[in-house]
């Protein structure tokens, strides 16, 4: 009993000493990279874009075979169709985005210094719709996910470049996302980091857990479990549910902040979405 109290005193003490109020995102990124380089020395930085297929040969072989004739091609074509169909007012998605929406996914999520919030590409798609008098689409799956998948496909191989502007609110959003990534929750008392950092590469029941670094590169992804294309935040909700925590609404402030942190960690990695996953 005394030993335990002592241990917690030490833990608390070290926290008080080592925890700055706001960490520096760049050094967070360096730490995570150093961690994964050490754990998976054979994987080059860009290789982490392949997710679990970067660290498991057996799964990789099957994945490459599936990618030869990928199950998401039709959805991407469909997404292109939606993307190119003008709104009732004659404008289109291309008018809402830089470079007409082509090859820009690497810059998302963005921090909007006007509204003071994180803008993911899916959030921006719906902002574009409402600004043009159209009803917003459901997040997660379906038309919006297809449009996002098409936009991702036009940015393949581009290098992720999420920017955190010199703005306190941006740093706070990043920090909130980071906290969500590391906090334990749900009936199973697990954090994102439990599986995808501390235990990345370990066998969790029948699965091999994927490294957190590179998660965001291949979304929207076609998951055989969904039998469809779905967005990153749909996966967040799934992960939360798997640890029996109540998920947040898709594109809620919480999930957008999480995506901001999560994607910032992958800066410098190539985009390879949409990808197929099990």
């Amino acid at each position, binding site marked *: 009993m005394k030993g335990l109290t002592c241990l*917690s005193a030490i833990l608390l003490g070290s*926290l008080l000493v080592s925890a700055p109020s706001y960490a520096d995102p760049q050094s967070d990124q360096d730490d*995570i990279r150093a961690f994964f380089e050490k754990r998976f020395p054979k994987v080059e930085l860009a290789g982490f874009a392949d997710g679990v297929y970067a660290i498991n040969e057996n799964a990789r072989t099957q994945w490459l075979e599936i990618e030869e004739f990928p199950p998401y091609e039709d959805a991407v074509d469909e997404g292109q169709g939606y993307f190119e169909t003008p709104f009732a007012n004659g404008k289109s998605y291309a008018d809402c985005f830089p470079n007409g929406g082509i090859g820009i996914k690497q810059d998302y999520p963005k921090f909007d210094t006007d509204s003071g919030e994180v803008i993911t590409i899916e959030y921006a798609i719906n902002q574009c719709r409402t600004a043009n008098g159209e009803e917003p689409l459901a997040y997660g799956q379906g038309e919006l996910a297809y449009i996002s998948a098409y936009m991702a496909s036009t940015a393949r191989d581009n290098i992720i470049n999420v920017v955190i502007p010199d703005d306190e609110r941006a740093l706070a959003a990043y920090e909130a996302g980071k906290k969500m990534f590391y906090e334990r*929750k749900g009936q*199973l008392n697990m954090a994102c*980091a439990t599986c995808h*950092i501390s235990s990345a590469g370990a066998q969790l029941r029948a699965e091999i857990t994927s490294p957190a670094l590179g998660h965001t590169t291949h979304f929207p992804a076609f998951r055989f479990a969904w039998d469809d294309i779905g967005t990153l935040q749909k996966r967040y909700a799934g992960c*939360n549910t798997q640890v029996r925590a*109540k998920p947040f609404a898709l594109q809620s402030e919480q999930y957008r902040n999480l995506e901001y942190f999560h994607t910032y960690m992958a800066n410098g990695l190539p985009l390879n979405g949409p990808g197929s996953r099990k």
Partner: protein
Amino acid sequence: MAKTTYSAFLALLAASVMMTGCSDSGMDTATDNPATAQHDEAVDLDTLITDAESSLAEADKLGFAWSVTAPLLEEAHTAAKAGNKEQAIALFQEVKHQSMLAIEQAHYAEKHWQLLIPK
């Protein structure tokens, strides 16, 4: 300092209790809970319902509600409506219990969320 150390210890304890709680997988904890087993007619159902619902609302507000709790609450209401008072009490108590643990997780996370950051 002494006080913070003590609360940190409590949080750690709560976390370890939760960990062991998970290992014998979730839903049947209602029957394991001594508080549930010992209740008698003295339990006021209305107060319990208010307690259970407000605890869950607080856990939810903190962003820490469990996904399994709301369905349990629904089940509890169904039992109450069907007149299964004993079952309803057990279920509402479980809702409250889970929500309290979730709130405790939120408090713990507030202080210790940085523990899992790789160094």
